[in-house]
């Protein structure tokens, strides 16, 4: 694995136990984490969670990625999980308040790059909370809705959809690419 990656003016690296405080600050931010499952405000628990995750990372079952700016200040995280021979899921996407408005877009672009071009993973599945309206609108531009229940809308994205999305996002951040 070639971590860290330097793309779109950001550095992407795997999460370590020492990132527990930063992740906890994101996951316990009521505004930022309102569309994710609840997390206890407990640093020890978060550290233990990351320790257990590192085992799954070693087995190539999961990748928890942190992205940071030029000054090595952490900006956000995302996770690839439920990785099988045929498919994977992305989620746990959180960004620190006050970031440049295109950090989110760049990190989402990197999710696709990592999953499809580096790890060569299969079909992409993910879910979005029904009340997360903007993110729903965004994903409906590219991904196919395959199911929904009271809480979530479930999406799938094949290779063609991924390429369309990458092309769209890249055209937006083109001046920032280096």
């Amino acid at each position, binding site marked *: 694995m070639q971590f860290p990656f330097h793309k779109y003016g950001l550095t992407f690296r795997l999460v370590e136990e020492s990132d527990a405080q930063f992740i906890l600050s994101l996951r316990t931010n009521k505004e930022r984490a309102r569309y994710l499952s609840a997390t206890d405000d407990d640093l020890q628990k978060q550290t233990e969670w990351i320790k257990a995750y590192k085992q799954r990372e070693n087995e190539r079952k999961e990748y928890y990625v942190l992205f940071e700016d030029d000054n090595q200040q952490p900006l956000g995280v995302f996770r690839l999980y439920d990785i099988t021979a045929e498919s994977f899921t992305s989620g746990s996407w959180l960004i620190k308040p006050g970031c*440049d*408005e295109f950090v989110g877009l760049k990190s989402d672009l990197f999710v696709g790059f990592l999953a499809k071009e580096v790890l060569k993973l299969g079909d992409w599945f993910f879910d979005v909370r029904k009340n997360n309206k*903007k993110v729903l609108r965004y994903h409906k531009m590219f991904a196919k809705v395959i199911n929904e229940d009271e809480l979530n809308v479930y999406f799938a994205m094949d290779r063609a959809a991924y390429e369309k999305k990458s092309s769209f996002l890249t055209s937006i951040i083109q001046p920032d690419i280096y």
Partner: protein
Amino acid sequence: MNIEKFVREFADQYDDISTENFTAETKFKENDEWSSMTALSVIAMVDESYSVRLTGDDVRKSTTIQDIYDIVSLKVNG
């Protein structure tokens, strides 16, 4: 293009705050809802409604809805 229609379309990208008072001179980043997702929603709306691709720089250098409207107008007519 029509600025009043554009302001309404722009305002529709906000889900959580009141946009009744949005005008062409509204500083669209100066509210609690502005985020990367709002920026993307605006870019997607412009792409769909005007067949124009805004860049991150276009949004970054803009302050008011009028600024975005002017950029879109230039690209539509360019």
